[in-house]
Structures are given as C-alpha cells and as structure tokens.
C-alpha cells in the first residue's frame, strides 16, 4: 500500500461523493422543506442521463447534450411537481412513498418504451478520454477530474445561492420551520416548484456526469437513490451542508472500504473466503456508518431543524 494508491483512492472517493451530493442536495431540500419523501428522485437522474446521452449523440457534442439535457429535466421536474406531486404534500409519508414509487415504475417503463431495454452509450468528450499526469507516477483519468471540478463548482454555487440570495433565505426558512415561513409571507407554492425543478436539474447533472463511467440504462436511478437516502439520513434532513459532508463521508468510506476490506480479509483468512466475504462486507460498510452516526446523533450530523 503506497502513497499513490491512497491519493488515487481518495480522489475516486471524492469524485463519487460529489456526485452523490448532487443527488442528495435535491433530495434533502424536498424532504426538508416540503416534508415529502420522493422515491422518483432517482428517475429524474435516469431521465437526465437519457436526455443528455440522446442529445449528445445527435449533436455530436457532449456539452450541448449536457446543457440541453439539464434544461429538459428541470422542465420535466417542474411539470411533474405542478401536476402530480403538489397533491402529495398534504398526505402522510406512506402515501407519498406509494405515489412516488408509482412514478418511479412508470418512468422506468416509459424510458424502456422510448429507448428500449438495452443500455445506450454516452461517451465523455474526446479531449478528456485519456489520463492526466498529476504527480510523477500518478496518472488520473481526466474525465474523473472533470467530475470533481463540476461537483465542487455546483457545491460552491449552492453555497452562494443558499446563503447569499433571497431565494436561498426562503429555502432555509422553509426548511427550518415551514409554518412560520408561510406566515411570514413566503410564497410557498412557487418556492416548492422552484426547489423541485432545481433538484431535478442537479440530478440531471449527476446523471450526465456519471453516464460515461457507468451505464445509461433503465433502472439506473434505484441503486444511487438508496445511497442518496443514506447520505441525507447521515447528514441531517433539510441541510445542504449535511448533504455535502454526508456525501463526502459516504463516498470516501465506500471507495476506501471496497479497497481496504478485501485486503484486510486477505490477510486474515483464506483467499477463497476473502474473495467472497470481502466485497460483501465492503458493500454494507456505508450502512454500518449510517447506523453508527444515528446511534450518536439520531437527527443526523447537521439537522436543519435543530
């Protein structure tokens, strides 16, 4: 185990964590402000990836695809909120889970009907398909560096938006105490729609960024949605700061664990057992992390409601 390995793995963990943050940020705002559990969040991620992949392939430009896909997904999110999700705010969490799960299933089938069952290709921009030499002996994929860059940029943007703008102030007020914000004159309905559309745009960015690394396929949103929920539970509902810290924690622990646990098991037991047990334990590591955090801080690390 050497320094270069640690640096490379840390960068991988950072990259993964920042993408999780994009999803978790939208999810935690919706949960925190509108008090709505949205299982369709992963579907927005999937729709975003599909739109970006299709437009990028048609126009032969990754950036145009990214821009148009994000705008398209934000629009779809907006329409979804105004037509369907608005009616779920007043209902209890179970009804919201059922309703948004139905949307999840319908999105999967609609995407399957339009694009087919096989994954569609999404290639990174040609200029970034190879490695960059960061340090002597460490070549890191340029595309993953782009992901890290985009993630940090969005995090900064969110910070400025939430702490320095009027819109951000309303969002924070709504997350802290919705009734009070309403009585103070915040146009809650428009705020909700704007937050939801913004969350959808963040999902699309994540989908477009991760698409070239993973596969753009039906059902791609489910596995990352579960991780996003773990992140917001760890970070605290309604807090973007919590979403960032939680996402970075989950990203680093998951990536680090996937490398260290099989190694550790390799020393402790026979190679055969290690080969089966290692990956299995590594994949439950983040749930152990979540349990640990909740044990010490049941409201998460940075709860918005104190």
């Amino acid at each position, binding site marked *: *185990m*050497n320094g*270069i*390995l640690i640096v*490379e*793995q840390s960068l*991988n963990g950072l*990259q*993964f964590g920042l993408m999780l943050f994009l999803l978790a940020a939208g999810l935690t705002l919706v949960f925190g402000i509108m008090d709505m559990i949205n299982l369709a969040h992963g579907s927005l991620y999937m729709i975003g990836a599909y739109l970006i992949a299709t437009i990028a392939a048609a126009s032969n430009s990754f950036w145009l695809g990214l821009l148009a896909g994000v705008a398209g997904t934000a629009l779809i999110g907006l329409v979804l909120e105004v037509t369907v999700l608005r009616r779920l705010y007043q209902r209890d969490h179970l009804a919201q889970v059922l309703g948004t799960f139905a949307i999840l299933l319908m999105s999967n089938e609609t995407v*399957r009907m339009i694009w087919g*069952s*096989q*994954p569609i*290709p999404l290639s*990174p921009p040609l200029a970034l*398909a*190879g*490695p960059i*030499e960061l340090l002597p002996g460490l*070549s*890191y*994929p*340029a*595309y*993953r560096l782009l992901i890290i860059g985009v993630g940090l940029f969005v995090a900064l943007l969110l910070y400025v938006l939430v702490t320095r703008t009027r819109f951000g102030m309303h969002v924070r007020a709504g997350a802290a105490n919705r009734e009070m914000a309403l009585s103070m004159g915040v146009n809650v309905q428009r705020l909700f729609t704007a937050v939801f559309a913004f969350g959808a745009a963040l999902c699309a960015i994540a989908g477009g960024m991760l698409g*070239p*690394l*993973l*596969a753009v*396929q*039906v*059902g791609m949103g489910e*596995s990352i949605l579960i991780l996003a929920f773990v992140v917001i539970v760890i970070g605290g509902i309604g807090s973007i700061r919590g979403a960032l810290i939680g996402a970075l924690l989950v990203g680093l622990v998951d*990536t680090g664990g*996937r*490398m260290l646990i*099989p190694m550790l098991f390799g020393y402790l037991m026979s*190679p055969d057992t290690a*080969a*089966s047990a290692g*990956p299995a334990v590594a*994949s439950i590591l983040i749930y152990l992390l979540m349990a640990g955090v909740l044990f010490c801080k049941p409201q998460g690390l940075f709860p918005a409601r104190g």
Partner: protein
Amino acid sequence: MKIPNRIVALSPTLAVAASLLLAGTGAIAADKIKVGMLSTLSGPGAGLGVDIRDGFNLVLKQTGGKLGGLPAEVIVGDDQQSPEAGRQATERLLKQDKVDFMTGVVFSNIMLAVGQPIFQSRTFYISANAGPSQFAGAQCNPYFFNVAWQNDNLHEAMGKTMQDKGVRRVALLAPNYPAGKDAIVGFKRFYTGEVVLERYTPLNQLDYGAELSLMRAAKVDGVYIFLPGGLGVNFIKQFVGAGLSKDMTLYGPGFSADEDVIRAVGDSMLGMFNTSQWGHDMGNAANKRFVADFQKEYGRLPTLYASQGYDAARLIDAAVRDVKGRVEDKEAVRKALKAAHFDSVRGAFKFNSNQFPVQDYYLRVVSKDVQGRITNRTLNQVFKSHADAYVGDCKMPS
C-alpha cells in the same frame, strides 16, 4: 339389429372424440415445435441475450420458419438478469406454453436457478451460453446439452496462452458469481505464473476505480479480465482512461472482446488478445453463410453469442429431423441430440459423455481488417479437441 338413432346421430362426434384420443397418446408425431427462448434482454447484459436470440432466429429465417421440417414457434422470455424472474418465466414456458425445447440463458447463476424445474419437466435444454461446472460434473443431467463451451474453457485457453507468452505477474478480475469463479479456476489450471492480485466484484458494479488503482500499485505485467458485455465496456474504457494501457497488457476471453464491446469501446481496444472457440473470419462454408446472412438480416457483425444461438437452432433442427418429428420420444431425441448431425459454424464439433462440447479453441486479436473495421482476427489454435475438466465427475448413464 337396427342401430339406435341416438348412436347414429352421435357417431360423427364419437369419431372426432376417438381421433382426439388417439392424437393424445402420441402415436402421431407433433405438428409444431415450440422452443422457449429465455434470455437476458434488459440491463447491461442485454446485448448478449439479444445476440443469442437473433442468431437462433436467423436459422428459422433460413429454413422458412421450420425446425427439422416442422413449423417452429419461438416463445421469447426476459429473465432480466434475475434468478427470480427467470424462474417465473420458466414456469410459464413449461406449464402454460408447454415448450418442447428451451434455450437462451446467458448467465450461469440464472442457469443454475432454472435448471431443475426444466429437467424435472423432461424438457431438453440446449444451452447457447451458460456452462456451469456443476452441470458438467456432479449435477450433469440427460436433459442438459451445452452447444457453446463449459465456463472454464475460454479462460483455460487464455491461461495457457499467457503462460506460453511468458507473462510473469498478472492481476485477475472477474464478477462474483458462478461463471466468474469458474473463470478464474479455469485460468489458473493452465497458468502457473505469479497471481499478484485476484479480485471478484459484484455483478452490478460498473465503476472499477478501486480495482484499477490496485493494479497500478501492484505493477503487474498483464491483466486478465472476465467481464462480459457492459461490464467489460466500462472496465476497458476506465482502464485506458486511467493510462494503464501503457504499462500493462489487457487479456480476456472472447466474452470481453467481441463485437458488442468493440462497438462501444472502439480504437482503445486495438491489440487486445482474447480466446474463443469461433471467429467470424473462419473459412468453413457454414460460417461463411452464417456471417453473410447475419449481416444482411441485422446490419451488424455477429458475436460469438450469436454463433452459439445459431448452432443451438441448427442442433435442434438436426435432432428433430433425425427423430422425424417424434419429439415425445425423449430417448430418441436425446440420442439424436448427442449425435449432433449438424455443420457447426466453428468447424469440428462433437459432444462429450457429459453432453458438453469437445472442440478447438483459438487465440484472437482485436485489429483493423482490410476494410478498416476494428474487429477480431483469428490467430493460432490454442487447444485441439479440448474437453472440460469436470467430465470425470459426471455419472450420467449414456
């Protein structure tokens, strides 16, 4: 004595009833062959299932919709790469559609899950892909035929190749499921150099950053991967993206370097060695016809999965013809299947006593052909008339 009017009036009905009863006893041959095609048609593994299905259907197009001279119907099911969904689809095909043959499963974990119900219903399964060691050895069954290979075979061929090439230090990577385990076991049976790194990743893992970092740190000479379909596409792109292709050579079985992966990865794959029992550039007549017809029908070059689906259909076609359509006579069908009276697109083909193939294996390399296409070129033969390692454990009556 005069026959009562009632009986005379009923006689047409009685005649029809009698003929139906006779038909039911199976004294007359079947009038239609039903084949259940259960494959993975969604998710990252979908490309493999689609190719098997297309290869199989190509034979029907060539014979005018017939197998063994009888009209054939292929009922397609999607196992969605889930053993549970595969079991449900199998139930439907066996009980509701009452298929005569089944084929198509891509992944060995699904094959192991749906095998027993199929064998218990006395339906013949012609595997066009999955060849788990269990079904080649201790759990072999008279109703299971494999027309592709036993899971270890292509990996054994690459193990021998890398051993002969003198590749000293290797990293091995395979998904954590039965075929993945079989792959590494098979590879190590013929490779005796130093295995520095051996990793099994979850079947749904698409990001190999961690594994690539470990390979870089281990400074290996060669990397052997078994990552079928979409998994291989992602790995190869990430491997090249991380700059590792400069320092180490990538080897794989044909599964990780065939047309589906080449289409998705492109130039970065040039120079990758892989092993297979078939190449589209093989010169025998059956193969030339297969490749030409496949390209004409589907507008793409066939993969080894398509060739296996094609051979499965040709095998069923030959067997049904040999038993003259009497598919109810299971013993006769089994004998006809074992005889394998068909021209395989890979050249020499025959079944071993465990109903798995005995065949030749070749080394291929991804290169540009005369038309400038990036595709596989078949090089030398690695094994001749190679049998699998589990045939000794199979105690099936022949």
